[in-house]
């Protein structure tokens, strides 16, 4: 009994070893750069992380195809190096000792790349699936190009400045012309007749700006009230 169990286990192990090896069919190489991504907060790559990876791949397969019944045990990892890099394959649970086609795995991983990356706190560059290209996100483009806005502001200021200078120039020109004609008119008159009142010219007396002399009582207080 024990011998039969051992035999089955060794067959499975050999089969797994056959399925998962570098450059095997439908196998992908993964390269992880934890220190580059996280620096001092880097975690160590151990068996627990490997378990998480297998779980994420199984999750991706299930999410991609709702019919898929991939278990964690279907994901095989091998050749883990210090780098950290390793190879993995996904076996088909329904058919024994075969691997899921590479295109399916690729599509599944592509679809869920974001989730896989964030599970490990990494990015496309630091968690590399060699042979699986990632779609690049387009750069953020605002609806109006920013430069047009800045340009509009600058242009408005300049035009305002030019208009101001031209208008002030025209005004000064007119004032200068008026002053020169006024000076000419004044010089033409030989005498200036000034009406005098009490030795003071009339224009000086501002007849409207008079002061009320408070000494004299107001009109309606002349009569004592009854």
């Amino acid at each position: 009994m024990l011998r039969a169990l051992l035999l089955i286990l060794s067959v499975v192990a050999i089969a797994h070893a056959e399925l998962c090896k570098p450059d095997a069919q439908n196998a992908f190489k993964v390269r992880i750069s934890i220190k580059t991504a996280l620096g001092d907060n880097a975690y160590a790559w151990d068996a627990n992380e490997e378990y998480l990876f297998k779980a994420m791949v199984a999750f991706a397969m299930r999410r991609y195809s709702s019919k898929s019944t991939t278990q964690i045990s279907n994901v095989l990892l091998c050749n883990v190096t210090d780098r950290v890099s390793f190879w993995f394959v996904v076996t088909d649970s329904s058919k024994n000792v075969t691997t899921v086609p590479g295109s399916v795995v690729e599509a599944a991983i592509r679809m869920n790349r974001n989730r896989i990356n964030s599970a490990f706190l990494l990015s496309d560059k630091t968690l590399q699936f060699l042979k699986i290209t990632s779609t690049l996100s387009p750069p953020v483009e605002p609806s109006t190009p920013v430069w047009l806005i800045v340009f509009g502001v600058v242009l408005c200021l300049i035009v305002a400045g030019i208009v101001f200078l031209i208008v002030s120039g025209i005004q000064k020109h007119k004032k200068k012309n008026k002053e020169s004609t006024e000076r000419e008119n004044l010089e033409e008159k030989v005498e200036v007749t000034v009406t005098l009142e009490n030795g003071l010219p009339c224009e000086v007396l501002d007849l409207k700006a008079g002061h009320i002399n408070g000494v004299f009582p107001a009109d309606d207080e002349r009569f004592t009230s009854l």
Partner: protein
Amino acid sequence: MSKDLSATPEIPKEDGRPKWDNKFQYILSCIGFAVGLGNVWRFPYLCQIHGGGAFLIPYFIALFFEGIPLLHLELALGQCLRKGSIGAWNTVSPYLGGVGVGSWVVSILVSLYYNTVLTWVMWYLINSFQEPLPWSVCPLNANRTGFNKECYESTAVNYFWYRKTLNITPDIAESGTLQWWLILCLATCWAIVYLCTIRGIETTGKAIYVTAIFPYLVLTIFLIQGLTLPGATDGLAYLFTPNLNTLKNPRVWLDAATQIFFSLSLAFGGLIAFSSYNLPKNDCEKDAVTVAIVNSMTSLYASIPVFSVLGFKATTAYWDCLDRNIMSIINEFDLPEESIMRQNYTSWISFLNSSHPEKIAGLKLKSCDLQEFLDQSVSGTGLAFIVFTQAIILMPGSQAWAILFFIMLFSLGLSSMFGNIEGVFTPLLELQIVSKSTPKELLSGIICLISFLIALCFTLGSGSYWIDIFDRYAGSVPLLVIAFFEVIGVVYVYKIKRFSKDVKWMTGRKLNLYWQITWRFISPLLLLIVFMAFVALQMLRPPSYTAWNPKYEGFPMKEEKVYPPWVQAICVLLAALPCTCVPLVALFHLIKQKRRSKDTSLVSAEVFSCQGANSNFPHPKE
């Protein structure tokens, strides 16, 4: 300065000529005119390729024997005669009127293309307000699987300059289309120039306070920032380490002489215009020495931050090269991360080479050499728009640095534009064709509008090739010719004895031996030698240019092409047009004199003198 200055723009002096608000404004205008883009992007490059600190020797010799004397000559001439370039030379001798006309033509040609360079600066400036900077990332291609091909093969910075800014054509014969964004920026630049020069020196005098002083502030900020960057000391050491062997090469002396000459903006007529608005009793000798020394000191001062930043860029590129190699090795041998660092890279490489030579060879590692990165020297627009922009991306807070840098370049260029426009504007005001009642605003507006319309051809796809042509042919040889005739004209036609008396009257001191010797012999001789050497060198080099052609096999290297014959004809025309003004005007005047009756005498140059023309000015000392 009374408050009335703002109310009456032209304080009419005895001869109705506007004047500077104060002496400082005048000096600042001259300095602003002299200090331009070349101080930032040409002088450091020359220093670097001609043996670092050793280049300063021919540079200062050229300054002493060529720069300062010619500068003093122009300032004294303008101050004495109190006219723009055309009027001044007509007064010296009607046969020399062509010198003034030549200066005027050169000023027009240079204004046209110089403002287009400012257009590019403005375009980069308004693009610096984005995050991330548009020249730091490559745009994606059509189906978003990768980056745009042209950008990917060269660099993002190159792509932004050649494609997004210039939209350059692969050949000068292909004109391409007008680039609307450049037209908008060009209109803005000409509007700014119009705003600042609208009433001549009254408005430029106010604007110059900002445009001349601001670059120094920014240079200081960049100096402090640059010195804190890693690799700055490598760049500075590289720049200033003197290599005296280069002095044996005559090319170095030629470059020093031409650099001084073009840097001081001589023979444009702008300096004559500026000094013509001075009071005649002004020490032009001290002014000339001041302006020349400030210009050279600015060049030196600017080269320090420029080279700190270039050293930083080279160091970063070197580190990137090392890092890429390290990453390939780590990936290939599956070594743990951070096992190979930059410090132990060489020992690892030698170890791996001995143990697995085929694997190492298969990786095709690039050899990383810091010296090689430092050797990549660029000048001109390449320095500002490609190399420096790349360095700015690497600095923290890159938008602020980009904005500061481009505003500085814009101010430097704008203050030089003031001088160019003044060189065009002032002679026009004095010519009889413009009536007295025409307001100045209208005249400057017409000049700016016409210049804008002509400069539209520089916004075509092939525009930058044309600007190179203008820079190489219109802004170089004619100036040397005009300056030569200036010196000869003053010394031998106006006669140096009379000029010495005029200068003595203006400055209050006798002309010392230095000026006598340099004006009479050394400067004209130097100019002649420089002119002949310059022309000889231009002839030796076939008239070729480098084109940006994405379809070229060696892309991203630029393709060497030869100018087609019609373009070569235009080059010759540009160089010859201002020069031929000199003999043409002399000939025209000769014919006019022969036609007139014999008893009307020539308006002899002997009759005119500085003191006589300015006799209506009060002489407090006498």
